[in-house]
């Protein structure tokens, strides 16, 4: 199949949608499909292997422009020049279908929806409704939404938004990730010294030895935070507020707190700030982490980082955000044998214990208590269960489900019978057909 995938956000910076698009494109290429990705900007240094990974063809839609939208700043492409880029990409690509991500944003995904004359599959990533602009934009936007042949939502919450605000149904297929990348070599309680290949990874692997409890990396137990340090919604401030209580429950020789991510953080005694780290370093860090902490405050649409932590064998302590609760309190889990086949899923009873500890949002004291308990009580059995559950989100499980949706969309709307719509036709009221 020739698949054209459109990512509305630039690869210049890391983001959930971008990672999803890259992961999916690489899997499709390895599975023998012709996958092309259109996105703003150029891929940053951490993602340059996207250009050479398999036969994924990457096309830039031009530099993204920062613009206010929906209360934040979005970096997107719009306007006649971008629309022309999109049309050219579609013409050259000769795709069997296009897969758009977050199409109801002022971006190339929406422009591709407008100009596409092949079946369209759309994936909705966010669970926050954007009703203001949609209400006001009215009929023109509705026409674009009608062009979507099949909708995918990454979570039940995202699906609800699609149903309520767009009036369309969507299949729930979760975000995928590369399970083996995070799980290889990481067995709770063991540490493979050969996996740290760069100087930085080596220092990530080894925390200084201290008395008392022993962490997976051989030194002190490690609590890790990953995320933008200066973005309030990532919740670093909650962790920092919890530090005194953590240090009361565990002496500094008994625990190491590591913080990694872009942005600047206040230096506080007792935490190790790593700043921005590469993907390989992230894997090494998670594999040497005993307790992964996710104190996010709001607007997390999926929380794939929790799955990455679980795959790497870390215990998880997270805020009780809907997305995190969906992941840590799943309604189905793999059968105890660890089968990855979806038909091997068993219904968990409601009383089954969550795969990680959940704490109220913004509650520093509860966070501290949960972290201290998680460090003192490692619970390897729970971590094995979590790891088996995370395996079900590997691309080898998720991507085939997406391909089924592709086939369904193709079967329902053969290209030959589609009318050509696009800039000349769809938005002009009263224009001749």
């Amino acid at each position: 199949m020739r698949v054209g995938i459109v990512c509305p956000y630039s690869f210049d910076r890391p983001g959930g949608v971008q990672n999803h698009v890259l992961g999916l494109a690489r899997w499709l290429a390895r599975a023998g499909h012709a996958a092309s990705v259109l996105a703003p900007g150029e891929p940053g240094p951490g993602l340059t292997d996207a250009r050479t990974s398999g036969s994924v063809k990457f096309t830039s839609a031009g530099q993204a422009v920062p613009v206010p939208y929906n209360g934040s700043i979005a970096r997107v492409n719009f306007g006649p020049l971008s629309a022309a880029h999109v049309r050219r990409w579609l013409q050259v690509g000769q795709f069997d279908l296009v897969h758009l991500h977050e199409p109801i944003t002022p971006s190339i995904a929406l422009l591709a929806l407008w100009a596409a004359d092949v079946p369209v599959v759309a994936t909705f990533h966010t669970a926050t409704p954007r009703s203001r602009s949609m209400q006001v934009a009215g009929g023109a936007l509705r026409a674009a939404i009608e062009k979507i042949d099949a909708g995918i939502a990454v979570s039940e919450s995202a699906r609800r938004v699609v149903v309520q605000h767009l009036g369309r149904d969507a299949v729930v297929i979760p975000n995928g990730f590369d399970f083996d990348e995070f799980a290889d070599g990481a067995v709770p309680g063991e540490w493979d010294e050969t996996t740290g290949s760069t100087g930085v990874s080596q220092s990530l692997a080894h925390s200084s030895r201290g008395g008392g409890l022993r962490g997976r990396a051989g030194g002190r137990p490690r609590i890790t935070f990953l995320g933008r340090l200066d973005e309030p919604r990532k919740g670093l401030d909650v962790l920092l507020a919890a530090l005194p209580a953590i240090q009361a429950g565990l002496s500094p020789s008994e625990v190491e707190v590591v913080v990694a991510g872009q942005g600047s953080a206040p230096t506080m005694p007792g935490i190790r700030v790593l700043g921005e780290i590469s993907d390989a370093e992230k894997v090494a860090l998670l594999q040497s982490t005993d307790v992964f902490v996710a104190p996010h405050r709001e607007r997390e649409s999926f929380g794939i980082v929790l799955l990455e932590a679980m795959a790497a064998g870390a215990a998880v302590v997270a805020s009780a955000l809907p997305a995190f609760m969906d992941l840590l309190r799943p309604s189905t889990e793999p059968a105890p044998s660890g089968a990855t086949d979806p038909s091997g899923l068993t219904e968990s009873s409601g009383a089954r214990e969550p795969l990680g500890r959940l704490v109220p949002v913004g509650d520093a004291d509860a966070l501290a208590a949960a972290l201290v308990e998680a460090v003192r009580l490692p619970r390897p059995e729970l971590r094995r269960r979590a790891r088996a559950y995370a395996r079900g989100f590997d691309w080898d499980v998720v991507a085939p489900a997406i391909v089924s949706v592709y086939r369904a969309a193709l079967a329902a709307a053969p290209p030959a019978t589609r009318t050509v719509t696009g800039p000349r036709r769809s938005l002009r009221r009263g224009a001749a057909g």
Partner: protein
Amino acid sequence: MSAVEIVGLAVIVLLVVGWRLSWLATRLDRAHTRVERRWAALDAALVRRAQAALEAARSGSIDPASMLLVCDAAAAALEPDLDPAAREQAESDLSRVLALVSLPAVEPYAERAELARRLHNDAVVSAVRLRRGRTVTLFRLTGHATEPRAFEMAAKGQLTWPRGFVG
């Protein structure tokens, strides 16, 4: 000097001071009124700009991504009961979007809004200067009237106020 002459002098001084205070109070009153009228005009001009933007965006002459941007910014600016800081931010955002999305029909409304803003801020500067004068402050002639505030909007095309990024 005799007692009569002292009293006479005191009366004259009091009359002069009284006259000056009353003159200042009148000027203050006029300054405040001018600010109010100019604010009403600015408010109306901003509303018209946002409405024009909305209409132009929905007319079908621009691509849907640009349309969404304009609709979002215009709707935010038309939101009722915004406090001054929020209003400034919303109108600045709309200015930014209008600088990036070419909508010729909105140009005249944007120009009128900018002119109204400059007139308003000019009146505010005058009123504040008057309010902060020595005599006015000493005799508390402003009473309960709050100090007027200039309406700051980003110059065309500038992004203001750091906010979270998406994408």
